[in-house]
């Protein structure tokens, strides 16, 4: 029932120990590598809200960073508790769909698209 414009998942779970799998209402499946998601954290501490510049260095995030927990935020996003202690990012479904790795090519420095 699409009276909202936001792409909506049906299920969010693990693809494996590191990666997150989102199954969407339209049948599409997205797999997000853990570090890629962590480096694209949209919180104000990680990215400048005005300029869009990354505020944290990729080197500050461990190579083996992984998600420890996921919660729904209202009906439009998830928040992720990371193994490096970071947890302030709210990942909106709309943003997640745009970030789907199989739908858009990643740039080599993992900047958000």
């Amino acid at each position, binding site marked *: *029932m699409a009276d*909202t414009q*936001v792409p909506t998942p049906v*299920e*969010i779970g*693990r693809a494996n120990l590191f990666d997150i799998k989102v199954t969407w209402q339209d049948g599409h499946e997205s797999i997000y590598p853990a570090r890629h998601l962590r480096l694209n954290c949209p919180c104000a501490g990680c990215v400048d809200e005005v300029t869009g510049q990354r505020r944290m260095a990729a080197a500050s995030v461990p190579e083996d960073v992984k998600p420890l927990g996921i919660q*729904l*935020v*209202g009906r*439009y996003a998830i928040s992720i508790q990371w193994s490096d202690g970071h947890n302030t990012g709210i990942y909106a479904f709309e943003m997640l769909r745009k970030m789907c790795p199989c739908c858009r090519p990643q740039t080599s420095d993992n900047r958000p698209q």
Partner: protein
Amino acid sequence: MSVTQEQVLKALAQVRDPDLDRDIVSLGFIKDLQIGDDEVSFSIQLTTPACPVRDQMKEQAAEAVRALPGVRRVNVTMTSQVRASVSQQAGSSLIPTIKNAIAIASGKGGVGKSTVSANLALALAATGAKVGIMDADVYGPSIPTILGTTEMPELTDEQRIIPVQRSGVAVVSMAFFMKPDEAVIWRGPMLHKTVQQFLGGVEWGQLDYLIVDLPPGTGDVQLSLCQSIPLAGAVIVSTPQDVALNVAQKAIVMFKKLNTPILGIIENMSEYVCPHCGAREEIFGSGGARQTAERLGIPFLGEIPLATAVRQTSDAGTPIVLSAPDSAAAKAFTTVAENLAAQVSIRAMQGEQVKVTF
């Protein structure tokens, strides 16, 4: 009696729920079907006690079964069990005992949102639903005034707030925690904390509906609410004026961005009917909200007439659905409440829930 269960169910399958657009047998409404010597009895379990078509459905069901050969008497009992709009995933919800949280919003102030919230809550409770009202209008909390409650809430041993009860509605308001001459002059984080406190820090108990009266506009409180819990949906209150509707649309855009279903628009302060001469006056215009609803493809929940008595009873703390239930305004509130309950049921049946299996 020679009639069989299958025959009765087949007859009942002719009765449809117009809102859910399916027959009442496939919807699972028929319970406790018993065929005795003298009478066929069953109950119809609706998805809300405020179902707008409950009387018609009861009559249609009774007629359908009475028409069967050999049936002498039919006894139909109407019951209800409200379905939750979003799955309350254990351990992760601030309000696990609340089935449907409904935000009442407006684009601008002065459209009568709090009066509408209070009367809707009372109208829903009058049908037998378990209802709470959370007055999240921290800047101008008027729900206790409108409901006429002067009690203060108590705390449990664990410092959780026990809502004040008024005519079957559990009430929590910012006004309980402020003196009349105090103002709330806060920035975002305090507002966010308050919203979370009024959700997770209150002993709401089992509720079918929590009405959340929001401040006007599209700000921190609205965002915090939409982030803290999965809402069943939002209702927009507007006057018929174009100006009010244009601003109301902003609230609609906000909720759509936050993936919150729009349960409908209510046109408040609709036509004024003079109690002396019966002359009708469209002081704020008329019909605008219905047209906007149609244009945007969202449900129109109804019109509430502009009547002095509505304002007077709000000021006096004796809301019109309680103090003058036969008045046109009170009946309008009841109709709107039923339409709202129907919309909540429709969404709950569609069962769009995101499962987190992490």
